[in-house]
């Protein structure tokens, strides 16, 4: 994983895991990697790995069964909420940047309606 070296690593890994949950790569109730495997996979130390799971548990994204491991939450609602939450975060950033360029909301909506994804123009 490519990190933004100026931002806390644990937050970046949490964000990556949240994306995996939203995309269905981590399913409700699925067992998550052990702290050690998480550390190796994301190139972090054990303390960071432990912190990642601690923070995610606090937010209700996962839960730990002592001696067994950490599991993805089984609450279907949580996944919906997570998707909405991540989308509104992205949107808030986008709106912030666009208004920084001087666009008003109406202009932005028009722009989005006219927006063609990469490749559409070539077709």
């Amino acid at each position, binding site marked *: 994983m490519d*990190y933004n*070296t*100026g931002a*806390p690593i644990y937050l970046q890994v949490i964000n990556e895991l949240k994306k995996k949950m939203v995309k269905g790569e981590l399913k409700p109730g699925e067992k998550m990697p052990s702290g050690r495997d998480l*550390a*190796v996979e994301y190139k972090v130390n*054990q303390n960071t790995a432990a912190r990642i799971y601690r923070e995610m548990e606090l937010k209700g994204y996962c839960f730990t069964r002592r001696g067994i491991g950490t599991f993805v939450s089984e609450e279907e609602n949580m996944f919906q909420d997570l998707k909405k939450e991540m989308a509104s975060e992205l949107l808030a950033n986008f709106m912030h940047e666009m208004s920084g360029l001087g666009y008003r909301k109406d202009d932005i909506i028009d722009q989005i309606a006219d927006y063609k994804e990469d490749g559409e123009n070539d077709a």
Partner: protein
Amino acid sequence: MMLECRELTKWFGSKAAVADLTLDLERGKIYGLLGENGSGKTTWMKMVAGLTKPGRGEILYEGHPIDWHDKAKIAYMATEPFFYDFMRVGDVGEYYEAFFPDFDREKYGKTTRSMGLSSEMKVRNLSSGMSAKLKLAATLSRQAELYLLDEPLNGIDYKAREEIISLILEEAGEDNTFVISTHLLEEVESFIEYAVFIKDGHLADKVNLESERMKTGRSLTELYTDIL
């Protein structure tokens, strides 16, 4: 505190390679030992490992002056290759087993095999990446408490570096401590907990990287430039 160095000093002739170095290391952490060539990193490691005597100052292990008993719990890996050319990978295991009571032969066999080293391979014929992996496998097969790795990522390609980092992260835990010296800041940035900056033989700064990223957003490269 696992290790405490108090005003550690070592002279080579009239030049102090390590000068009044005061540094504490906690158990369960990974430290990056950073500094220019000749700043005293290797000399410090050798003093802690008991391979060279401090001229002045003291080293405490778990609160008491370090003795031979503690030194047996410290695994030092030198930069330069330290196996004999005529040896095979399997012989290195035997050699280590004879030297270190805490050497786990089974683990050595497993680790070397997982990295594509068979016991029949001759040390002489290994590529620099393979050689680096062999050195690390031998060092990590000791059940030490403190691992001092001098430039484990030097002179090897990207893939071998990634394998070496994975091996370190598999071994690092709450019961042991790693000190890794390197110039490859980007390679170690995500997993080093504390960056220890050494300049002219003394401690220039010790920084918790995650707190630093939280507070100032500075990357390790920026810190390095600012501090050294």
